[in-house]
Every structure is written in C-alpha cells, then in structure tokens.
C-alpha cells in the first residue's frame, strides 16, 4: 500500500518535471510556425516578446521596436478586464469565452475575466454603461438599410456604447446621403458600400451572426411560407387538410401575449401578429419579400418627381368588421391620430421621420415652445402654449390631404423610407367614426394633447379591434393568455379583385378560427404538439433535438427565391420516431435580425469606480475608460474573435456571418465586403500598435 503511494508520488513528480521542461520548448516550436499557417490557433507567431520580459510590466518607454514616445503600449503593459454577462445568457458567455481564450493565447498578460451576473446587477451595470463589452440584437422595423445603420451608428446603440462624436458625425453624413438617394438603387448602394468600408476600417463593432430559423408544423398544415417582416404568422394563406383533427381551427403555441391591440402604439411581435391579421395597411408585403409591396387598402400609389409627395388611391367597397365603410378620411385620421397620440416608444417615429424629420411630434412642439421638452410626458405637453399646440396639430393635419376624387396625398418633408413605414402595423387603418365612439381623439386640434403619449392599456383599443383584415378578434383571455381570431366572413378580397400576388389567396380565409395559446413550459408545449393539439409551435433552439425525431419532411430555404424546396433526405437525428406524429420542418430561413458584438467606447464609472475595468488604467491590472476608442484595440479584438466557433457554439452551426451592418439583398450589401477573419497573428500585431498616452 505504502509502496504504491510512493510510486504515485514519483510519477507525479516526473510528470510535473516533464511538463515544466516541455513548456518553453512548446512555445518555441510555436514561434517557429510560419506566418502562412494563419488558421493555426495554437499560439501566436509573435516572437519579439520574451515571456520573461512580459512579466515585468515596468518601463514601456524602453520597448524595443515600437517607438513609444510619450505613451504606453498595451502589448507591454497587458490588461485585465471583466466581461460581465447576465447569468444564463449563453450567447454572451460564449462571446466572452472566445475573446478570453484568444487574447490569452496572444499574450499571457491579456486577461479577460468572464463573470456571470445576476440579471438585476447586469441590468444596472448595463444601464450605467459600465460594461466594457456588449452584444446587441436588432430586429428590423422595416426592410431598409437605414433601419440598420441608424441605431448602430448614430442612434440608440451608438449612444449606449459611447461612440465618439468624430465617428458618429462621419457616419451621419453617409446616412444623409443614403436617405437622399432613396429611390435610386445604384446610387444608394454606392453610398452604403463606401460606408461599409469605413466600418471595416474603423472596426466599429464585430459583426456576429444572422440566425437561420426553424419552423415546425404538423404535416396537415398547408400554405406556410416565410416572410422576414411578418410578426410571427399571417393566417390568411394558411389552412389545414381535412385529415387534421379540427381542420378549421389553427392552434399555435407561443410564449407571449400582446402588449396592446392599439395599432398606433403596439411595437412588438405578440401584438403585431394579432394586428397584422385583423387590421390592414395601405400597402403590404409581397409574398416572401420584405421590401416589395402590393397595394392593399390602396389600389395604387405614386411618388412625385421630388420623391416627397405620395399619392394613394383608396380602395372602394371595403367594410370594417363592425360594419363601417372604408373612406379616405379614415386613412387620413388614422395616420394623423397615430402621429399625435404616439410617443417615443411607439412605432410612430417611422411615420414622423419622413413626414417631419423628427422622431416624435413633441420635437415639433419643442421647436416652438421650449418649455415642452422633446419626448415630453402628457402633463408636460398639456402645459405647453395652446397656440403652439394648435399650430403643430394643424401642421400635422395639413401634411395629409384628401382630394376631391378620393385620393390621399402625403406631403413628406424629408426623404426617408415611407412606403415601408406605411406597411407597418403602426400605420393600420381604423374606422374613424367607430374609434371616436370608443373614446379616441376626435380630430379636434384643441384637445389632441390630452391623448398624446397614449399608453398601452389606457388606450380604448387595448383589447378591442375593428379592422378590415381577413380575421377579427374573438377574445383575448388574460387569465389563460389566449387570443382567439375569428374569420371575417365578409372579407373584401373577392375573386374579381384577385390575389395580391401570383398564387396568393382570394376570398375569405380558409381557417375559421386561430387560437394563439401561451404555454410557458416547454415540456408541456412539446407534449401538446405531439398529441396534435398544437399545429404550429415555437421551438427554442436548445430543444430542437427533442423535436427532430418526429420530423418526417424537411424543406430547405433557398435564399435566391425566398422559397423552400424539399430536401432529398432528412438530416441525422430526424425521422427516427416511429409513432404516428409527423412533423414538417422548414429550415434555414435567415431572419431579419442579426447580432453584433459591441465595444463600450466610453466606459462609465459610478461614484468613481467600476469593477469591470480593474484599476481603470493601463497598468496591467485594468483598462482605461477609453480603451476601445483606440482603433487598434478594436481591430485586435476583431481579429481575435472566432466567428465560426461562435456560430457553432451558440446556434449549433445554424447561422451565417454577415458583412457590413445590414441584411443581404439591401442596397450596398455585399457578401464580398472585407471582414475580420480569425487571425491571432494580426490580433497580436494590432495590439502592438495600440499605444495609449500616459495620463499626466
């Protein structure tokens, strides 16, 4: 017994010795790796630094080949930073770990600590702009490049991440040019292509991924196709075969209910799904396309030479669910009410920005009466100068006019995506008389401020609807979180009018009823799908392996046509179940959202301290607050990020890495645009170029 312990000790000692002896050798061999092998992830090929030197952080001015005049080199000092993420968020954790491992390979003095934070702490640190790194996910409002660039480069995210003025003002010029070129695909493409070059050169952020989607449905569901701009599903083209249990009702399993059913203020997909089936807009998305439109409640539209005046001819013979007839006045009132009743967090900015060049009507008031701040509260608006309020209201009303022959003319002030805004549920057309009866603003300019900033539940349309769409609202049961849509048996799109797109549906919807169920517990939702009680089901990516065995038909997305084609064979893990559950999987549709990894250019401290940046200076045990303002640091991190590993770890490989900042198919999007590839040599090189001035 004793003997064996001694043997074990000796073995351990020998092993330990062997390891210590081999370590320098291994590093040396790594330094011999020729630069050609760029994909080598083993160790950096940087041989200029001796590990022994690095441990002495002391005098950066004595650094060898880099001429450091009055600054310190990140490479010499090293750094230590904490990547905080909210506990349970695997995506953020993976980003953190990839960066941590890469930079540690490049230089052992580069330390990223990965720390899981409880949600409240994460939220607090994030709101205080304390976190050095961030990730952003953006789901577009409408399919236009501006909607992608603006938040990241000059808008919300740019502000949250403290992108310096010199960059934002440069980007803003591009964005202005891009807007001015609306209508001219090539000119616009040229502007955005140049902007993408800037973004690459600035390494403004690290492009992450666009996730590929999976849609599971029962084999008896018919008519599904993918449109990236729909909020979940548009039920008009969908149906079930007679073989289905309960063939006239569609049961859909989800995880959330609407915020509100007032179309002017709802701004999320749960409500959007109901609204896009119940209400209609002047134009609507062509089949699978996010940026081609067909006239819906309009019969046609035209744009004037200057690109600022839009004229819509309103469809006749359309009735609302409650019986009213659609009139051009309904159109005018609905859009005006939206603009005057919305607020900063409603989708109305999409309409006010082309109409007046502002995000909210309060900005118009503020320009004339500075006592009313931009994005005012209702109380602040009510306290404004009555004459100014009257004048702003009149301006809004004058911007939309109804002509004698029943057309509606929109006089916009600024070039901005307008037709896409008219397709958003925020521009849904309501029945004016009915709405006023329910307590909505009656169009009187003396009272609009009392309705300004209408909130979700306060709205008279919180849970009642009266649209023109193929479905009407049955019930919204809060206790069971269940929404029921009933077929509109008097839908206006008859055989004579014809389908909206080739092969599109005509007449009344085939489904009599749609039940949107909220079932939070995944296991329960799965069992409901397997028993046939759910026709379509939301499946979180982590659970796909539990559903795949029941997939007996697989369709793959074709990015060229936007359609799905049947796959020749199932993928591994699919179709292994032999029970009578047969699911169909539509796989690979690239969604209208992408994820980016962001740097905080201006890391804030609270009460003089920030636990995430260590010492707060470049002394090897922290980073300065403006660490990421240095373009070389950003480039270095961009090279040190392994996007393939990221997509593999987070999406099980079901994603693609985008270039630029927008979506494929948009003006200026180019798959061949330069991207930072995973390259530790170049990462090291950029870190060596990152010089920080010494503070005093």
């Amino acid at each position: 017994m004793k003997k064996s312990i001694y043997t074990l000790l000796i073995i351990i000692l020998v092993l330990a010795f062997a390891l210590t002896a081999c370590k320098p050798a291994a590093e040396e061999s790594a330094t011999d790796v020729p630069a050609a092998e760029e994909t080598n992830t083993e160790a950096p090929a940087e041989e200029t630094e001796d590990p022994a030197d690095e441990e002495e952080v002391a005098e950066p001015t004595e650094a060898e080949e880099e001429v450091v005049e009055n600054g310190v080199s990140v490479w010499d000092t090293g750094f230590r930073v904490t990547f905080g993420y909210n506990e349970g968020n695997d995506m953020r954790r993976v980003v953190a770990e990839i960066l941590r491992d890469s930079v540690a390979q490049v230089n052992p003095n580069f330390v990223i600590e990965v720390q899981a934070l409880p949600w409240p702490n994460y939220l607090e640190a994030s709101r205080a702009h304390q976190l050095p790194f961030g990730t952003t996910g953006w789901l577009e409002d409408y399919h236009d490049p501006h909607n992608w660039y603006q938040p990241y480069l000059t808008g919300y995210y740019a502000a949250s991440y403290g992108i310096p003025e010199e960059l934002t003002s440069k980007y803003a010029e591009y964005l202005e040019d891009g807007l001015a070129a609306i209508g001219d695909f090539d000119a616009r493409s040229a502007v955005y292509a140049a902007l993408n070059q800037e973004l690459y050169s600035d390494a403004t952020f690290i492009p992450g991924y666009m996730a590929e989607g999976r849609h599971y449905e029962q084999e008896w569901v018919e008519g599904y196709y993918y449109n990236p701009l729909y909020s979940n599903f548009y039920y008009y083209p969908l149906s079930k075969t007679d073989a289905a249990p309960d063939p006239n009702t569609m049961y859909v399993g989800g995880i959330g209910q609407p915020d509100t059913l007032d179309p002017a203020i709802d701004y999320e997909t749960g409500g959007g799904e109901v609204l896009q089936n119940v209400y209609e807009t002047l134009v609507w998305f062509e089949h699978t396309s996010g940026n081609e439109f067909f006239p819906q409640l309009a019969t046609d539209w035209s744009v004037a030479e200057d690109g600022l005046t839009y004229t819509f001819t309103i469809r006749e013979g359309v009735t609302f669910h409650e019986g009213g007839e659609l009139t051009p006045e309904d159109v005018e009132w609905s859009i005006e009410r939206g603009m005057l009743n919305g607020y900063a967090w409603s989708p109305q900015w999409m309409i006010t920005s082309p109409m007046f060049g502002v995000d909210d009507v309060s900005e118009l008031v503020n320009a004339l009466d500075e006592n009313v701040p931009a994005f005012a509260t209702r109380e602040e608006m009510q306290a404004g100068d009555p004459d100014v309020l009257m004048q702003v209201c009149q301006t809004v009303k004058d911007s939309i006019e109804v002509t004698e022959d029943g057309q509606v003319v929109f006089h916009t002030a600024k070039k901005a995506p307008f037709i896409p805004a008219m397709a958003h549920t925020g521009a849904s057309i309501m029945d004016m008389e009915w709405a006023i009866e329910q307590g909505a603003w009656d169009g009187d300019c003396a009272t609009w401020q009392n309705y300004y900033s209408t909130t979700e539940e306060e709205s008279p349309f919180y849970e009642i609807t009266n649209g023109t769409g193929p479905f009407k609202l049955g019930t919204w049961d809060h206790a069971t979180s269940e929404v029921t849509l009933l077929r509109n048996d008097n839908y206006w799109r008859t055989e004579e009018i014809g389908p909206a797109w080739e092969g599109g549906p005509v007449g009344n919807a085939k489904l009599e009823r749609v039940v949107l169920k909220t079932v939070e517990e995944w296991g329960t939702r799965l069992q409901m799908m397997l028993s046939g009680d759910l026709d379509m089901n939301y499946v979180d990516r982590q659970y796909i392996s539990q559903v795949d065995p029941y997939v007996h038909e697989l369709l793959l997305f074709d990015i060229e046509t936007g359609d799905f084609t049947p796959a020749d064979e199932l993928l591994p893990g699919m179709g292994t179940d032999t029970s009578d559950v047969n699911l169909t999987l539509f796989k690979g549709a690239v969604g209208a959202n992408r994820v980016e990894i962001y740097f905080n250019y201006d890391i804030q401290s609270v009460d003089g301290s920030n636990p995430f940046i260590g010492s707060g200076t470049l002394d090897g045990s922290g980073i300065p607050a403006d660490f990421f303002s240095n373009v070389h640091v950003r480039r270095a991190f961009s090279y040190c990020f392994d996007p393939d590993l990221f997509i593999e770890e987070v999406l099980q490989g079901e994603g693609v890495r985008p270039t630029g900042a927008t979506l494929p198919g948009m003006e200026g999007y180019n798959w061949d645009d330069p991207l930072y590839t995973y390259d530790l040599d170049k990462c090291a090189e950029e870190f060596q170029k990152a010089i920080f001035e010494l503070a005093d």
Partner: protein
Amino acid sequence: MTTYIIRRLLIIPLLLIGVTLLIFGMLQFLSPVARSALYVRDLPKSEDALDAVIRTYGLDDPLPVQYWRWLVGFKNPVSGEVQGGVLRGELGYSHSAKQPVAKMIAERFPATVELTLWGFFPIVLIGTFFGIQAAIHYNSFYDQLIRIFCITGASMPVFVFGLVALMVFYTKLSWFPPGRMSPWVTQEIQAGTFAIHTSLMTVDALINGRFDVFIDVLKHMVLPILALSYISWATFVRVTRSSMLEELSQDYMITARSKGVAHKAAQWKHAFPNVLLPVITLAGGTFITLLSGVVITETVFNYPGIGSAAATAATSLDVIAVLGISLFNGALLIVANLIVDVLYAVVDPRIRFN
C-alpha cells in the same frame, strides 16, 4: 368559544399590518422605476419622464409617508383620480400579465380555488387512509409498500412526475389533457352558449346542466391533482402513521380491548379521533398551500391559476406582481389560519380553554 374566536379576530389586523410592512419593506429594494408600476401602467421610458413620475408619486418621500400612500392610494393632482392604494385593492400593474395585479388575481384565483377544492379531499383522505393502514399493519409488507410508494412521491420532483404523467396520460393515451378546459368549451363560453356564474367551471357546469362540460373540466384537473397528491401523501402517511402507532400503544387502548371492544372498533372509535388532531393541522396547511397556488404543478400542466401567474411574473422579473401575489397570499394565509384554528378548537375542546 366565542371569546376565543373574538380574540383570534382581534389579532388579525396586527398580523395584516405586519404583512404589509414586510411587503412594503421588500418593495424598497426596488428602484423607483420599478416601484412606479404601483401607480402607473407604463414604466417611464425617458429620464425626464422618470423624474416626473418620482416627483408626482413621491417615490423619494420619507418611508412612513410612502407607506401610507401605498396603503390608501394617491390622489393625482392633475386628473383628480385616486391611484394605487393596497387597501383599495390596487396592487399595481403587472407587466407580465399585461393587466393590473388585482385583476389578474381575480381572474386566476377561481381556477386555483377549484383545483384546491377538488384536490384537497383526495390528498387528505387517501393520505390519511394510507397512514392508518400502514400503522394498523405495522411493519408488514403492506406497511412497507405504502411507505415506499409515498416516499417515492415525496422525493420525486413534481415537474418530472408531471411531464411523465403528461407523456403517458396525455400524449400516449389521450385521457387527461393539460390546461383548464378543452377548446370547444372555450368556444362555447365565447359564443355565449355556456354562461359563467361563479367562474368555478365545475359549479357553472352543474348550474348550466352541462354534464359534458363538467366531465371535461374534471378531466383537465385529474393530472394536477394526481401530481399534487402523489407528492403530498408521504407527509400525511408519516404523520398519521406515527401518531396512530402512538395512540395504539396507549393504555386506554388496552383498557378498551380488555373491556371487550372489538379490535377494529377500538382502532377507529378510540384511537382514530386522537389522530385527527395532527391531521387537521397538516390538512389546514395543505389547504392554504394549495389555495395560494402551486407554482410548478400549475406551470407544468398549463393550469391558469395563481401559481402559474406567480411563475410567469417571477421569471420575467415582474416584482410588483410577485409581491402583489405575496400580499394576497399573506392575507389569505392569515384568514385561513384563523379558520383552521377555529376548527381545531371545535375538534379538540382542550384548546378552547387554554
């Protein structure tokens, strides 16, 4: 007896104040943004709006002032409306349920009450029965069988049991579906062919004379009740069994037997009533637990009661809703405790006189 009840009633306000103080104390851990949901429906979205809300509702006033306002409500100087006020039944706005907390509780509570009423008796009666049987057949095979069965139930996580039960009885056999009722019942309610009177679906079904609805609703409750029973029986068995064993070994049992009382009669007439006391305590606790919503069971079976509402609120960090439900449950607990105590006194005269 009356003085006993009056004495107990007098303590209630004190207890309620204690509960409100506790909940109010917890609320102070929230930021003013989160606390503003006590009075306004929408969280302030800009810094200016936030300041305005804090000013208007005095969310930075001294705590006693805030406490009083939280209790009785706040008169909005602009609109003149009284907002909030726990005593007025205003518990704030739940962002996860998209409705006021009080309304959410009012809509969800009947489902929980119904589940409690139907589930309570199988849990208590069968659990007690098992316990008595185990004691009577002390150390026999039967005793061991009951104990193993019940301990398995107590040690199994309810969501595991729930999901397995769903797989077997719902997916495979199609006997007992999750939810509260079938879609066709919902459709009848929506169409107005089934009238809602009490919101207790089984009771309403009887009032409407609709046996099919009655059966449907019962079928939906079978699995949750089964799951709840299976995890609760162990406690009943343990308590009943040990106290029955204790009673069986008491001198009065020997006396009874020696007087010629039959074996069974001695067990049930003499020993059993004494066993009832701990059983009532336990049953009271179980009743209150059920009534305050069984979080995991309701979530697994998608049963729209207080418990699943609490779970949704908690997972979406809707603290106002969670604390609203806690306050409601706290008040419920106090009242239910009173009832149990009175029952206790009825059963055991000794308590009244102490």
